[in-house]
């Protein structure tokens, strides 16, 4: 399936990528699955999506946990803990 992935703030800079549309393998159906998929790209992705790094996720602009399901056409955003206000 095809989904849109977005990266923000420090994560966007580390990856040198604000976001992209990606075609996922059939076995990637959750946020955790997508994270492992991105991590398998290696390099900056492997570091950014390691278990030690705090990365928050939003699916279609709602904060979710790693177990959340994803479906075709979803907008999935990854970002560091927020620091506004």
């Amino acid at each position, binding site marked *: 399936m095809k989904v849109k992935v*977005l990266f*923000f*703030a*420090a994560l966007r800079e580390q990856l040198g990528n604000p976001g992209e549309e990606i075609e996922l393998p059939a076995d990637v159906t959750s946020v955790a699955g997508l994270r492992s998929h991105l991590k398998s790209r290696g390099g900056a992705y492997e570091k950014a999506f390691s278990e030690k790094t*705090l990365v928050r996720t*939003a699916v279609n*602009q*709602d*904060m979710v946990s790693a177990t959340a399901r994803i479906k075709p056409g979803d907008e999935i*955003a990854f*970002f*560091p*803990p*927020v*620091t*506004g*206000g």
Partner: protein
Amino acid sequence: MKVSVQEADFDLGQEVKALSQDPKVGAVASFIGVVREVPMTLEHYAGMTEREIGKIVEEARLRWQVMDCTVIHRFGELRPTEQIVLVAVASAHRGDAFAACEFIMDYLKTRAPFWKKEARPEGARWVEARSSDDQAAQRWTIKRAEGKS
């Protein structure tokens, strides 16, 4: 209820006046966050920020008597002494206005997708999230649980 995420500055007097038009309003509490010491750039997730702040305001309305409310958060490049954020709450009495204003601000800090990047003399650096901000938001959860028992 007004939620605005914008580059432009805002005027507290004008916003408070807009919240005080209803004769049933007896109190308006407001908070302004200001850039301290270091120039910064604020990045945000357009669309989600407005949505997330809207949800926080709705949560506040379930807990306190909120007659009207304005939240403005700026993004882009901001210099020390510039205003970053405004939360203003109108209610019949001060108790609800103060509490709702503080609640909205605490939740905004931990939930609204904004990120600060400071322009320090030694180089630009992303601000790290603080656990004290999480604790500030958490105490409202405890308060609600106590209230229910």
